[in-house]
């Protein structure tokens, strides 16, 4: 599903070069649920951005669903993002001027679905996250947890094979965080591949597979929920 080999990413500013990722290698199989942890600045978001085709990389190779993404045009990348990937952001990133229906509609329009199909998918997705009755509400009229569930509805309405979440519960209290986690678990059970970055060790433990990122590389591929890892991520 996702296959990264020796990915490197360097951010250059006038004064400094930051090696955000170096020799980053990771395989994620279809249907996995992977939680990514690591200290701040270790490169988690950079990894997720590259995985989600939001950012390019400087070295190494990356195949997504069998497609070598190096050298693809900007519009080809946009199409891949639209069809294969669903994004969930820490701060939800709902469009404030659009109601929930129109928000979930955004990626579906880029996909070019018919109006009827869009409507059906939007309603299904919002029902699934428990917001079927709030379709005409604006994001500002919802709680944080509801907003994040709406964002999840938007991410899954196009039936992507791959969900990427960057600290999806980072802005939520623990009750709402648990609801969101349960939703992700349910999606995972239905067959969606999920990669989730989180600072919350407890949530990370609930994922079947954990990886730990340190200084731009995967530090531990196998050990799950060891005391040392928990200490590092809390």
């Amino acid at each position, binding site marked *: 599903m996702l296959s990264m080999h020796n990915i490197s990413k360097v951010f250059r500013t006038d004064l400094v070069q930051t090696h955000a990722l170096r020799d980053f290698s990771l395989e994620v199989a279809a249907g996995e649920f992977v939680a990514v942890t690591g200290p701040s600045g270790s490169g988690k*978001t950079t990894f997720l951005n590259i995985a989600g085709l*939001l950012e390019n990389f400087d070295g190494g190779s990356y195949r997504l669903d069998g497609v070598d993404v190096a050298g693809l045009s900007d*519009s080809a990348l946009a199409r891949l*993002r639209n069809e294969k990937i669903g994004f969930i952001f820490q701060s939800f990133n709902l*469009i404030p*001027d659009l109601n929930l229906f129109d928000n979930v509609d*955004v990626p579906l*329009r*880029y996909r070019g679905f018919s109006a009827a199909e869009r409507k059906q998918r939007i309603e299904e997705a919002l029902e699934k996250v428990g917001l079927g009755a709030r379709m005409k509400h604006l994001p500002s009229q919802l709680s944080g947890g509801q907003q994040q569930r709406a964002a999840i509805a938007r991410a899954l309405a196009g039936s992507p094979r791959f969900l990427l979440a960057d600290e999806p519960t980072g802005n939520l209290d623990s009750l709402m965080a648990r609801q969101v986690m349960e939703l992700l678990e349910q999606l995972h059970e239905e067959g969606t591949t999920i990669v989730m970055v989180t600072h919350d060790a407890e949530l990370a433990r609930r994922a079947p597979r954990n990886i730990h990122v340190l200084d731009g590389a995967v530090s531990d591929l196998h050990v799950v929920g060891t005391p040392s890892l928990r200490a590092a991520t809390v």
Partner: protein
Amino acid sequence: MSEIGPILRALLRNKTSALLIAGQCALTLAIVVNALFIIVARQELMQRPTGLDGENIVYVQSMGFTRDFRPEAVIREDLDLLRRLPGVVAASPINAIPLSGGGSSRGYSKEENTESEGIGAAYYELDEQGQKALGLNLTAGRWFRPEDVQALPENTDQYPYQAVISQAMARKLYGEDAPLGKRLYFQNGQRSVAIIGVVEHLPSAWVHAENFPYSVVYPRITTEKFIRYALRTEPGRRDELMPVVEQALRKANAGRIIRLRTQSEASARSYRGDKAMNIILASVSGLIVVITALGIVGLATFSVRRRTRQIGTRRALGASQWQVLRYFLVENWLLTTIGVLLGSGLAVALNLYLVETYSLERLNLWYLPAAAVLLWLLGWAAVYAPARRASRISPATATRNI
């Protein structure tokens, strides 16, 4: 375009800035359409055909001041001299300068002994070379022969027997009937002359008067101390000949003051106000258009900056650069279209007000779609740079905290 619905709904959530731009577009359209309409009408007024060889006509005014000044003899000598100057095509005495704002007019009618004032028309006095001196185009009948021309002092009861009239005058009086041989009555229909010729155009002296195209020419020379000649030079030689003419006349007879004036000068003077008004209107319209364009640029720049994260999110969700660019073009098109609809109503209202208060012409409604197209293009030109910048926002903006 499939995105109109959500774009419009998003716009309606930001009514103030949307209305600001749409309102500015509406006002711009209303003002610019009316200004352009007035400008074009004035331009048309200034470009009416005159029938004169405008660029090559010079008027010479001679004011005799000596006691023994004998106008009739002086006129004979002057005409002789002028007609022999190399480069002069023709010369004739003339009583008034067309389009100059100063001249004589009189009421004419086609009936004898009428109570009515008749049609006001300019009257000119020219001799046998008058047609050539002004470059007039004769469309029917004939011009005056030397034996038709009468030299008379100002205050006399005698009138010539014939007249040439302008075509507009002929049509006004007789409609489709042939004017040749008809009699033209004046002084309440108590006097008359025979129409022997028609010229295509010969305008009166008053460019803003309704009787601008109506004129009557008599074969007559007024013998007074104030004399005026019209003379036509070979094409392009007017300016070079003017000092020569002045010198020659002064030398021939020193007992007078000589002044020269070109037809172009006289016409330009009459239209000076129109021209100035057109320049003012055009400048103000241009300024309004520029201000509106800057307003659109400003608001679009602001809204792109405000929506940076949203644009990044759209890119992350699969929008191509072109789709982001198109979003802003469509949004701008919606705003200008609202502006066009409001502005068209406003333009017509403003025009009706001007029609009522200043008796302007009714607006030609073709101006509205033309202005709409211009406003759309203006909007796109203004929004293009900010929209282009928006399309280059990185999709990674969605996850990075800014």
